[in-house]
């Protein structure tokens, strides 16, 4: 009898244990653990396909080197100095490393500026590197007009798009294997996690009880999750605003304009940090732009923001354009409103 009781107890325990194994890690997942899960993990668990640049994990040392390359354009370790990727730019001249929106799915330039002001981050022409690992497409929409077949591969490949950026966008060179690898490790390290996207309570509950979901439900949940973050930033080139449409700052928000001037224009032009055109927070700089406000020249705010300039032999520093998705027409008017104010200072 005792034996029967003993075996029954063992069988019950095995059953219980098997049950918990079957339910897997998801049953024991509480909300905090869920938050820390990477989107890659979640996507895989929901039957999502591996991205082209999928990495199972990152190496912290390589990620650190990747960050060093992003910030400085080269690596310096004791006497060893790697060759600069570009003599003219570093990544952070055009790209932030932080989030640029409170909602990871947002791409609206108005929200982007509001977030930048709130968090005191630069307002730059390039998309942020934050969450770039989780993107599927690069150099989207109109970038083909500028780069043509150079971005054939890069459009769907993060490593290839990094190479295009290093070689062409930054007037530099192709990355060596170890450099590209290090930057990829940094991107993997800074990939998005569930905490970075806005999931509903039900979606979180579904994730916590993943094994209960059917294949169809998983597919649906995967789709919903993928809609919660940007998998490719829109990039629409704009024509220079026609003269008749320009308001020259009338009705513009000068306070927002000041933020744009200080954190877009001066970010590169203050004392010619990145480029030859030296600007300052002074009335002479403002007057320079106001004098040219009706023009279709590089010194017209309306022209230069939308068209940028191109690198050329002997002048490799150029200004990238702000697409419609990175700066709105109203924000250009806000900038003009501030320049009007600055000129009167």
């Amino acid at each position, binding site marked *: 009898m005792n034996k029967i009781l003993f075996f029954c107890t063992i069988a019950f325990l095995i059953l219980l244990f098997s049950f918990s194994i079957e339910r897997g890690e998801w049953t024991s997942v509480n909300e905090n653990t869920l938050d820390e899960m990477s989107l890659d993990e979640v996507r895989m668990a929901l039957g999502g396909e591996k991205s082209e640049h999928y990495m199972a994990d990152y190496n912290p040392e390589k990620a650190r080197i990747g960050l060093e390359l992003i910030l400085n354009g080269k690596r310096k370790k004791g006497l060893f100095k790697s060759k600069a990727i570009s003599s003219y730019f570093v990544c952070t001249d055009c790209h932030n490393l932080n989030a640029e929106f409170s909602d990871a799915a947002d791409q609206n330039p108005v929200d982007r500026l509001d977030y930048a002001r709130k968090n005191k981050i630069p307002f730059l022409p390039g998309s942020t590197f934050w969450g770039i690992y989780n993107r599927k497409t690069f150099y989207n929409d109109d970038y083909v007009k500028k780069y043509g077949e150079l971005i054939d591969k890069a459009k769907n490949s993060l490593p290839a798009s990094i190479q295009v950026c290093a070689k062409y966008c930054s007037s530099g060179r192709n990355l060596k294997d170890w450099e590209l690898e290090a930057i990829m490790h940094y991107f993997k390290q800074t990939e998005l996690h569930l905490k970075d996207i806005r999931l509903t309570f039900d979606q979180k509950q579904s994730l916590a009880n993943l094994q209960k979901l059917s294949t169809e439900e998983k597919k649906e949940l995967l789709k919903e999750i993928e809609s919660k973050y940007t998998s490719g930033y829109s990039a629409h080139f704009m024509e220079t605003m026609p003269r008749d449409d320009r308001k020259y700052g009338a009705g513009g928000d000068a306070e927002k304009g000041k933020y744009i001037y200080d954190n877009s224009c001066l970010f590169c032009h203050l004392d010619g940090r990145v480029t030859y055109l030296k600007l300052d927070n002074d009335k002479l700089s403002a*007057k320079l732009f106001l004098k040219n406000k009706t023009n279709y020249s590089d010194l017209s705010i309306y022209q230069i923001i939308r068209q940028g300039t191109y690198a050329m032999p002997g002048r490799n520093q150029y200004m990238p354009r702000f697409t419609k998705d990175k700066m709105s027409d109203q924000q250009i008017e806000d900038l003009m409103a501030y320049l009007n104010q600055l000129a009167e200072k």
Partner: protein
Amino acid sequence: MKNLGLIAVLFSIGQFGYAQDVTGTFNSTRIVNSHSTEMLGKKMWEYRIEHRFGDVAGSNGGAQTAFGFDNAADIRMAMEYGISDKIMAGLGRSKGIGRPYTSLVDGFIAARILTQNKENGMPISAALVGTMYYTYMKQISDPQSVANFEGKFSRRIAYSSQLVLSRKFSDRISFALMPTYVHRNYVAQDDLNDLVSLGAALNVKINKSMGVILEYFYNFENENFRTTATNSIGLGFEFVTNGHNFHINFTNARGFGELQYVALTQEDWLKGQFRLGFSISRNFKIKKS
């Protein structure tokens, strides 16, 4: 991960620290003759071509010399480089004004040691400039001439040190004081090896790309020596374009470099002994790949 986040935050803070230093006190690394407190940016190269014509008027000027255009008082070509944002160096070659030097090579190093800053209360910018000059001109056989050098290498060498103190008073007005010391290893009997001069300059910007500059150097002379020496006065007009700086000036100084415009100026504005000069500089970076 936390460390990376911290680095990213610190980087952001660093980006926001840039707006405090006062910039653009002068548009170029030079005022008229003197150095300014401006430095080339890190890894920036600058190629300079500087030219001074002959006297506009006076016995050596006028219509006969097309108001000085027929003559070249001095010509300097130089390559200069920004070692860091606050330190630069340059190597130049001048024709030399021929009194006594020709074929003059100069090498200098300049460092901005103070930067005017509104937030931390620093009222001025300051730069130190040290220059060494060497002439490789042919030795003149006349032992009475300074250019005889008595066959000694060291006698071909001179030095200058300059402290440039500047302040940008407003968007348009900047002012500078330039105490300068010149030492020549070998001089004529009626000359002095050591000279001290105090320069002053006023820069008025008309707009973002044009400015007017007035510069004057007062030499503290011993009245028993250097009786023909005069103080240099310069009036400059500056045109800045994207990457170029074009400078037109009128000055009684014939030569470039502290050695020449401080120590060797003998011309008098009131006698028409001033000249048109210009300098063109082009900034560039060398692509390494």
